[in-house]
């Protein structure tokens, strides 16, 4: 009996040791062999939080703020952290500046994913954030953000706006995560990488109730956010505001460039919009309203629209003629109310006849430039007309037409210059100089952006070259902007040939011609009007100008859709902008008044709008 008991004692001893061994083996595999638990322990307590940087600000050329960043907060709720006994919802709604119904619906949304932070309200001001913190609303957290602010409320299209990234953008670029902001359009988009800065991340420890317990590893792994770079724009805010005011009620664009640098002083696309509309809680409504506006306030006409350049293009035509030797400045051509070819006739307005090149520029004679164009493309040295048009194309391209200029503007358009191939397609290969003659006076298939036209003004002002127009002249933390903006781009026309053109433009303003209203005493303004025919209604009014004649400081293009004669509205607008820029004063208040009161009849747009509204109303039903 003793013996058997002892054997069983030994067996039971083994059982006890076996139990101990099982526990220790399991512990060994968990604590020593497996890394899984370490990672899970860390992910239990540590949460990575994105620290949003302050988005870079934009100054105008004089150091005034065009775009400011202001601190604001997103208010998030984590549903399961809400107090069980409820809280003062009316007070919270007041602090958040939302209706109690909106708050209730957001809370309801949050209840579906109780552990995730859900946005309750955005754009909370700093003062209200303090109120929220004092209120001790548990479960509500704030996230630092910056919102845009526009002191002068100008340059809607020019500056672009900031919006939350779309899912497509998130999947396309690694940098962005859901909830990030991204620039849309204008400077915001073109300089996104400079403006956005670098997001930081902080690792914080939380207990199981979600209460903050401090920084993980005392913040050793944290990355501080880097503020976005401050940009200095070439825009003159005062001039921009003035130009926008002058363009109120008109559809079109104004672009002004400093010829000696290519810096864009003014860029207005009208109708424009207050950029502040694209910030804050009403943004979506405002955006929708703009989307339903048939005048398309969000379409940046200054860089995207394709307008027929009209008579302003005669400058290019003349220069090409002079360079190619088919025209001497002393050549006189007759104009009997137009240019007749075959059975057709290109009309012209009444003026003296015959006239020489300078006078033809000043008077904007259609017939004169038709002769020049005809002589140029039919020149025997090219062999045939196709080659002639091809050479003409090369010249026109060298003036920056028919292609993107390579500016730093977002969504720059190329315009259009018709090619021999285009005519071959259009006319089945059967066409002659008469078919394309309207190109001589900037009509027909030609399409230019207002920016390209302003660049033409700069080219003439510089007598033969241009600097690529740009809108940002300085990026914080960099010595220079892109090298392409410091290069002179020469046209294929020698600078000597520009002299008579400039003279003609000067005469047009200062002696007699279509641009007399642009005269400013002692400033030697040069200009060329344009009255572009178009199939939609009244002619477009356009004007190219630069001043002063020698050492020009401003080159400008104004384009007003359906504004009538170039002298009717484009000339006074350009002239007033030049006056303000060059003299810092406005001496012709009655002219300002006249421009402000001038509203073209946009029945085309109004009709379209009516139809569109009616369709929408119908589809809503």
């Amino acid at each position, binding site marked *: 009996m*003793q013996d058997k*008991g002892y054997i069983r*004692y030994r*067996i*039971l001893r083994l059982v006890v040791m076996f139990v101990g061994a099982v526990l*220790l083996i399991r512990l*060994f595999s968990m*604590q020593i062999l497996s890394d899984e638990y370490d990672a899970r*322990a860390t992910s239990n307590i540590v949460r990575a939080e994105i620290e949003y940087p302050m988005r870079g600000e934009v100054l105008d050329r004089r150091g005034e703020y065009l775009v400011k960043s202001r601190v604001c907060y997103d208010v998030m709720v984590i549903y399961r952290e809400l107090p069980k006994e409820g809280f003062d919802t009316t007070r919270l709604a007041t602090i958040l500046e939302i209706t109690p119904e909106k708050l209730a619906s957001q809370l309801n949304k949050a209840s579906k994913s109780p552990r995730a932070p859900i946005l309750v309200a955005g754009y909370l001001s700093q003062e209200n954030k303090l109120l929220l913190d004092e209120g001790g609303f548990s479960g509500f957290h704030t996230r630092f953000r910056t919102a845009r602010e526009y002191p002068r409320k100008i340059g809607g299209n020019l500056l672009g706006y900031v919006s939350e990234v779309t899912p497509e953008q998130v999947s396309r670029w690694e940098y962005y995560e859901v909830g990030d902001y991204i620039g849309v359009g204008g400077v915001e988009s073109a300089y996104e990488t400079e403006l956005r800065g670098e997001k930081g991340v902080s690792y914080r420890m939380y*207990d199981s109730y979600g209460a903050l317990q401090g920084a993980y590893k005392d913040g050793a792994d944290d990355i501080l956010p880097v503020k976005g770079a401050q940009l200095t724009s070439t825009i003159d805010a005062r001039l921009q505001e003035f130009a926008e005011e002058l363009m109120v009620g008109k559809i079109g664009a104004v672009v002004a460039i400093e010829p000696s640098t290519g810096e864009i002083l003014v860029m207005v696309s009208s109708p424009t919009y207050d950029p502040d509309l694209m910030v804050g809680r009403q943004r979506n409504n405002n955006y929708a309203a703009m989307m339903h506006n048939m005048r398309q306030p969000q379409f940046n006409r200054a860089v995207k629209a394709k307008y027929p350049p009209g008579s302003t293009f005669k400058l290019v035509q003349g220069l090409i003629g002079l360079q190619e030797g088919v025209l001497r400045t002393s050549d006189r051509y007759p104009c009997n109310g137009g240019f007749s070819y075959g059975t057709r006739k290109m009309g012209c307005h009444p003026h003296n006849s015959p006239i020489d090149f300078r006078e033809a520029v000043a008077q904007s004679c259609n017939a004169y430039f038709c002769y020049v164009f005809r002589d140029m493309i039919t020149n025997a040295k090219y062999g045939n007309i196709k080659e002639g048009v091809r050479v003409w194309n090369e010249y026109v391209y060298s003036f920056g037409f028919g292609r993107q200029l390579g500016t730093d503007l977002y969504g720059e358009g190329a315009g259009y210059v018709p090619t021999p191939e285009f005519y071959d397609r259009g006319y089945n290969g059967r066409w002659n100089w008469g078919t394309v003659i309207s190109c001589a006076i900037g009509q027909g298939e030609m399409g230019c952006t207002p920016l390209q036209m302003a660049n033409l003004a700069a080219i003439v002002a510089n007598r033969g070259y241009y600097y690529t127009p740009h809108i940002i002249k300085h990026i914080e933390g960099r010595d220079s902007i892109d090298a392409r903006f410091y290069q002179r781009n020469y046209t294929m026309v020698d600078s000597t040939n520009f002299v008579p053109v400039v003279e003609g433009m000067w005469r047009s303003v200062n002696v007699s011609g279509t641009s007399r209203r642009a005269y400013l005493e002692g400033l030697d303004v040069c200009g060329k009007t344009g009255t572009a025919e178009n199939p939609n209604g009244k002619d477009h009014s356009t004007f190219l100008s630069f001043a002063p004649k020698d050492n020009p400081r401003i080159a400008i293009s104004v384009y007003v859709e359906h504004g009538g004669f170039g002298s009717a509205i484009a000339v006074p607008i350009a002239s007033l902008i030049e006056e303000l820029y060059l003299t810092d004063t406005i001496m012709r208040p009655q002219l300002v008044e006249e421009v402000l009161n001038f509203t073209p009849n946009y029945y085309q747009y109004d009709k379209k709008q009516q139809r569109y509204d009616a369709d929408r109303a119908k589809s809503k039903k």
Partner: protein
Amino acid sequence: MISDYNISRRNTSTSLFGAVDKVALALYVTIVLIGVMCITSASYDPEKGGIFSLSHNYMKQIIWVSISWIMATVVLLLDRRLFHMFAYPAYALGILALLAALFFGREVNGAKAWFEFGSVRIQPVEFVKIATALMMARVMSDYSFNIKRLPDLIKVGAVILLPLGIIVLQNDTGSGLVLGAFLFVFYREGLSKYIYFPALFTVVLFVISFIFTPLTIFIALLVLFTLYNALKTGEVVGHFRFLCGVFLASLFLALVTPMSGYAALMTVCGIAAVVLAVLAIKTRTMMLLWPIAMFVYAMLFVPTTDVLFSHLEEHQKNRILTFVGLVDDPRGVGYNVNQSEIAIGSGGMWGKGFMEGTQIKYDYVPEKHTDFIFCIVGEEWGFFGCTVVVLLYVSLILRLMRMGERIKEPFGRIYCYSVAAILLLHVLVNIGMTIGVMPVMGIPLPLMSYGGSSLVAFTLLIMIAIRLDASTNENDIYI
């Protein structure tokens, strides 16, 4: 091999404290102190007041430790015959206390198993363990007791089942299971090993019946038992034929009659079992009866489990389901275990250091100072700390068994074994549950978990064993 049987006292001093087993005492004190340290780590909160503020759980625990040690001293000073004498009244008192708790007690976590006196809560089941151990020792040490006799076996069975029944009624099944530890004692006292095999088989069947469908289980069992017999008898071909016959007959039955495959198999197996049993008895091949009996048992048991299971409480069901891996729900029932595994697993070799355990500090481990206190050892002291604690427990249990062996009279031996068995089961289930090898049963880690009644009860339990052991060389005549 009597010469191997060499456990005897080195110390033959007759003074009481001289006779006390210092090793067991030292192990006990060490474990208690480690427990206090862990509770300190779990409950120190500077916002609650100074280090010695009584609002901290560890200060309360220190008070309980003091009370326990006073009581330990008293126990060591008592005459050992008292324990023998008090076995019956203690047991009766324990049963009464359980009943009182059942009818008048307070419900905590679904178990109506507590008395509340002011801020002190006492769980009588902790003390019933002592009473049952004493009672068991008393009954089994009876001069005429022989565990191999059925009436005696029923007697000890009743001693266990009476409190167990009340505890189950209290809805405190986890604590009740601890009484199963006495199987360990019965084995030492000579209970046939054949009783243990069906018990083990039952447990295995119980667990797998949740994982597999009955049909799968029976096919597996059929193959397993036939294979066992085939190997044992060497008649592989014959057994293979038998197996094929059973399956073909079931298939035939399932196709011809509207019976399901399961029902068909059961029917064929039932008939086969009867035929085989008759054949076996006729041909006197008794060894065939064993697997047949087991198989029939399984046929009865598995369907019963389903019925049994549907009568369990929701939380018990969930615990079992989570344990066998049928439910994987990290935020639900498995949450505690999941978090506890993370805490322990992240401890590494040396742990994160005293009060540095992030999972502990930031409250990711629930019940960290009571049932899951081993997490603190695991996270803050790593594998090193765990090894120390496990070895301390194993040493204490082995020491108690050794003490039992050297006590000459059965009362002391049975009592010591009971204590060892109760400790073993607690340690296995509690630590096992924190590392996911045992289901969550809500029983404390002896001497370490926070809680007065548990600490006092385990102290008394162990001190009585030490006291009985200390009497071995005294010359008192045992009654």
